[in-house]
């Protein structure tokens, strides 16, 4: 019996923006199916740039991204975007349809699924994030935390191989953080979470990767990574006062 291919395989990925600014200098990253991984790094490290490569929004200058065995290429883009669900930082960017249900249905409809299947996926995705009651409400009437959970539902409805979240805990109050963490840890998918929020990484992700200056500088079990004070300091990462990663 052969093992399933890794959910995500990034090999020697390099990229420069059109203005000449080089953001990634050869990134290697392998994430197995069902893993939950935190991607840490200071401002400007290249985290968002990496995320935009995972679903082919940006095209690699060098190297390759493979999602569950399928390489990211122009021809495979529709399937890649189904397999990789990206949840962006500002839910107002993600939620643009007049109602929550319409918005969650947007992706499945783009896949050309029949209406009954679309409806079933919308219901299932909203239930997974505990937002089924809000189906007919306009997104801008929801609280920020609710909007973020709906944004997660919009990618779950695509039944992705891997869900990628850019700064999921930003702007959330403690209750909103906890609710989101509960929802995310219950999801039966591979998860890559970009964050500055080290306690959140410790709480949710067994494994952490540090990206800085466009390369991966550390990759290991989260407690090990977070208890290496020298490593954190070298990459402008700080634990909140009084927080102990070993716990």
């Amino acid at each position: 019996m052969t093992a399933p291919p890794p959910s995500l395989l990034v090999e020697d990925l390099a990229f420069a923006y059109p203005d000449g600014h080089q953001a990634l200098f050869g990134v290697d990253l392998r994430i197995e199916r069902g893993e939950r991984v935190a991607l840490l790094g200071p401002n400007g490290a290249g985290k968002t740039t990496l995320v935009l490569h995972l679903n082919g929004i940006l095209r690699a200058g060098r190297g390759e991204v493979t999602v569950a065995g399928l390489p990211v290429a122009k021809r495979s883009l529709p399937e890649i975007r189904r397999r990789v669900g990206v949840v962006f930082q500002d839910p107002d960017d993600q939620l643009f349809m007049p109602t929550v249900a319409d918005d969650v249905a947007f992706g499945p409809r783009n896949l050309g699924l029949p209406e009954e299947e679309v409806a079933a996926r919308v219901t299932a995705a909203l239930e997974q994030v505990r937002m089924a009651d809000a189906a007919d409400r306009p997104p801008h009437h929801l609280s920020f935390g609710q909007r973020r959970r709906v944004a997660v539902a919009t990618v779950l409805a695509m039944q992705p191989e891997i869900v990628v979240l850019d700064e999921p805990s930003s702007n959330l109050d403690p209750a909103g953080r906890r609710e989101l963490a509960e929802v995310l840890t219950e999801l039966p998918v591979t998860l890559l979470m970009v964050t500055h929020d080290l306690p959140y990484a410790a709480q949710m992700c067994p494994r952490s990767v540090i990206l800085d200056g466009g390369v991966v500088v550390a990759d290991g079990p989260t407690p090990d990574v977070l208890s290496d004070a020298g490593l954190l300091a070298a990459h402008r990462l700080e634990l909140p006062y009084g927080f102990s990663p070993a716990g």
Partner: protein
Amino acid sequence: MGAGPGGTLLARYVPGTSAVHRLEPHLKLVSVLAFALVVVATPVHAPWAPAAYAGYLLAVLTAAAVAGVSPARLARGLVVEVPFVAFAVLLPFVAAGPQVEVLGLSVSRTGLAAGGGLLAKATLSILAATILSATTEPRALLRGLERLRLPQVLVQILMFMIRYADVVGGELHRMRVARESRGFHGGGLRGLRVMAATAGSLFVRSYERGERVHLAMLSRGYTGRLPTGAVSAAAPGAWAVALSLPLAAAAVLLAGMLLG
């Protein structure tokens, strides 16, 4: 703005269960458009024109009563008309031709008819449109427009306007609060300069948001088409209800032409 979060556009819709509320949105659109066409087709200089306007008014007020749209709501709808009023009031003074005395002022007879006609037609059409917007959710209106084969691009632009009016309005509001918190009061030349900077920065922010929204849409497989859900066919009875307003107006117009 001032309507608070989630206010601006959606506040115009008043939920209800009247016969008008339950009509399919595209039927209502056709009905309002046909009514406006009949109103506009009325010759302003015909001697029976004022009687016809009265007839239309009766028809549209009846529709408002059936729809349960309050007079106050109708009056608020008419606020958009204010610029027309200014123009219509000017017409009798600037138009040429035989003069008549009104309240001691000498004004042009044709100008008076034209100004009065313009005002009456605008008022009637806006009343009908107000009933439409008070009884139809914005997104239902969009579906109606789509049913009527309005090009996809226009439907999408309108949809984004509805969705982001509040987001952009909120951004503007926060910028104003931030300005005033630092002691800005507006007015004068300096005020204008600050306003220009605000408008510029709002434009850049909105533009950048547009780019981010587009990225997020691409990430979910957007290809340029916006797929909407299935729509049901309208029953013949619904057409009859929807068309009763323009048909009543057409009957008034016909009576005027034949009898007047």
